[in-house]
């Protein structure tokens, strides 16, 4: 840096005269100005970059938070469902009845609720048994609330208010909310045993008890006596269903994603089975074995283009090919093959990139020892590039999970309240049908969400948000697996 002549005064408080653009800066002040302006550009660029990142994060965060606010609550709700012929639980309703004139009085009603062994460990199990006073009946003791915790065998709640049954067909339903002497059991997210409502019908002959659904239950003791005891063995229990274990339904509180996420899992299985072996083998062939000429260059361009084809076009192609030509129908197999083809270019490209990252020195070392091409590929290239291959495959699969358009095109239905048949079924009789699930109709989570958002009832939109939360969590989990796999596989390999 040249210094100015000693006679020049140091004018640090005044900016130097602007220099013409055709001349390089010479004086220290000019150089300082130039450096400051270049640094400023750097700083501005840094700030702009930071702003962009912040904007992206804020948008992403807003999306996720909005989804979560709507949906997370729904994920933990349960409702009670009367199952169809599953393992019976037991409960006793014991009470005495006294005839008072023409009326019968049933009291006290004691309900014993048995705990079953297989309470879900995932939820907070608390059974609250409440006794609700009847309208108009003021002789009700304080409601006896019992909290039932894991480890407790029984919870007993005693209703001290008598249930009055008048003759002539007035029915009082035990177990229904709001009626004297009734027991209402509620879950706070656990398995619950709720006594089935009993309908008590009084007639001059005595009382009749009928279980919910009008099935008569056995009554011990004489029905027509003045007093006696009633003991009933109940044969069913309510099972709480959560969002994940319920089928779709017309009622938003009962609708769940069971068929949707099972469908997603099965379709992903078929997709992986179709895309991964084929894609990895194609990638290895194209990278290692194929000669580099115009044809292979054309193939490479085509594969890169196919990765960007709109997914609905894949759906159209699959409709013509799998549904109509191969007669596979609107089934899990079709969906899996369609998504497999969609994901195939991604897997091929990821495989090629991973193989290219294996250094040529390793390859040369293996070849120089007299190994064949396949020995080199099998012993070195594939193991060292496996982390990249798996990462790319998982990313491809996590894209396929969210693809809706091709599945709608091949005719995935939106209301599927059943599961594909399992390969081995034990009841009603043993049947082995290993591939029946492939040809069964199905639904997947994005389609279920689409179905719910197109309904006017806003409660369904809440369901859709909850399903969205599950989908996002699934995608994040898959990507996390990809990252962990890549880290662990790469740790062993250092070039």
């Amino acid at each position, binding site marked *: 840096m040249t210094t100015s002549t000693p006679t020049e005064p140091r004018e640090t408080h005044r900016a130097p005269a602007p220099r013409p653009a055709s001349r390089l800066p010479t004086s220290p002040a000019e150089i300082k100005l130039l450096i400051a302006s270049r640094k400023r550009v750097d700083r501005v660029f840094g700030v702009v970059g930071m702003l962009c990142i912040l904007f992206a994060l804020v948008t992403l965060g807003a999306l996720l938070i909005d989804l979560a606010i709507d949906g997370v609550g729904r994920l933990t709700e349960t409702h009670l469902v009367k199952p169809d012929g599953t393992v019976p639980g037991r409960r006793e309703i014991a009470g005495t009845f006294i005839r008072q004139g023409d009326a019968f009085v049933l009291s006290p009603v004691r309900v014993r609720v048995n705990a079953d062994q297989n309470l879900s460990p995932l939820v907070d199990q608390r059974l609250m048994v409440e006794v609700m006073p009847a309208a108009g009946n003021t002789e009700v003791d304080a409601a006896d609330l019992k909290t039932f915790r894991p480890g407790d065998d029984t919870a007993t709640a005693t209703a001290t208010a008598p249930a009055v049954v008048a003759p002539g067909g007035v029915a009082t339903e035990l177990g229904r909310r709001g009626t004297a002497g009734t027991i209402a059991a509620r879950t706070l997210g656990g398995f619950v045993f709720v006594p089935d409502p009993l309908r008590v019908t009084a007639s001059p002959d005595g009382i009749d008890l009928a279980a919910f659904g009008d099935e008569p239950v056995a009554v011990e003791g004489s029905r027509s006596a003045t007093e006696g005891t009633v003991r009933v063995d109940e044969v069913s229990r309510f099972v709480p269903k959560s969002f994940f274990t319920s089928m779709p339904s017309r009622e938003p509180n009962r609708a769940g994603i069971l068929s949707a996420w099972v469908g997603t899992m099965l379709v992903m299985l078929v997709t992986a089975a179709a895309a991964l072996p084929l894609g990895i083998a194609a990638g290895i062939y194209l990278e290692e074995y194929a*000669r*580099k000429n115009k044809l292979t260059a054309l193939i490479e361009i085509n594969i890169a283009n196919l990765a960007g084809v709109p997914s609905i076009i894949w759906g159209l192609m699959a409709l013509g090919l799998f549904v109509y030509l191969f007669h596979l129908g609107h089934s899990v197999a079709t969906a899996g093959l369609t998504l497999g083809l969609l994901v195939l270019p991604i897997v091929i490209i990821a495989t090629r990139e991973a193989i290219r990252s294996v*250094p040529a*020195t*390793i*390859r*040369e*070392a*293996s*070849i*120089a*020892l*007299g*190994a*064949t091409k396949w*020995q080199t590929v099998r*012993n*070195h290239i594939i193991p*060292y590039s496996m982390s990249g291959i798996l990462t790319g495959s998982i990313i491809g699969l996590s894209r396929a999970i969210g693809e809706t358009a091709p599945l709608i095109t091949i005719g995935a239905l939106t209301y599927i309240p059943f599961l594909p048949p399992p390969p081995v079924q034990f009841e009603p009789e043993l049947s082995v049908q290993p591939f029946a699930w492939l040809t069964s109709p199905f639904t997947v989570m994005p389609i279920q969400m689409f179905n719910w958002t197109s309904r006017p009832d806003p409660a369904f939109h809440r369901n859709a948000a909850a399903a969205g939360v599950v989908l996002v969590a699934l995608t994040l989990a898959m990507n996390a697996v990809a990252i962990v796999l890549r880290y662990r596989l790469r740790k*062993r*390999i*250092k*070039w």
Partner: protein
Amino acid sequence: MVSVAAPRACSIHQDEAHPAADLPAKAEIEHLGFHYGARQALKDINLRIAENRVTALIGPSGCGKSTLLRCLNRMHDLYPGNRYAGRIILHPEQIDLIGPGIEPMEVRMRISMVFQKPNPFPKSIYENVAYGLRIRGVNARSVLDERVESTLRGAALWDEVKDRLHDSALGLSGGQQQRLCIARALATDPEMLLFDEPTAALDPRATRKIEDLIGELRQRVTILIVTHNMQQAARVSDFTALMYLGELVEFDRTATIFTNPSKKLTEEYVTGRFG
């Protein structure tokens, strides 16, 4: 065993007896030419490689010594667009290594190479050495154990790694890795070993160890070593060939090349006036 192709019209040596004529030859390079695509890298090389001796190839950068080395184990076949010309006769079977009917893999099974930058596989030390045997179908544990030990002893590495045979080879130092690569190349009993500037990336102590190793190995294996370090050639080799711009300038016993070369170019190079 003098080969069928008698030493004829090397443009370099006219009437004096070919150096190394008194020793049996392992390989004879006759009028070798090589093209990288359109560019000619080697022109009419004639060289006689003596059996169980160390022959060094020296020369300034870009003279084609590595190219020549890689012709011997057909490494150029890996990349498209390369063409060989001439013959490389391997004794005693008299096969032309770059002939049309010869499978490159067969050549490489008999001629091994050690590269400039140590490139052990990211596997265990044991697996590195055993790899050559495994790809030849030898998988019996006892055989592999014995071969691995004898090879590592032969490469002067056994004492340093005998208690960590199954650790990753990448945990070794640079010099140890290079000796491992030499052991890996030796495990299959090659007839010829090619060294492509093996100590270029190593410190002087490691270099010394490897040069000592080469000195021991020469009794069992024919060695061809490319080096840009003239002093290394002087220390290690029996015969030296100087190359320049793709041509063989002079080939003679090492002592002669360094003390009494015939060509002016040789003298200028070995005295350091260019290069």
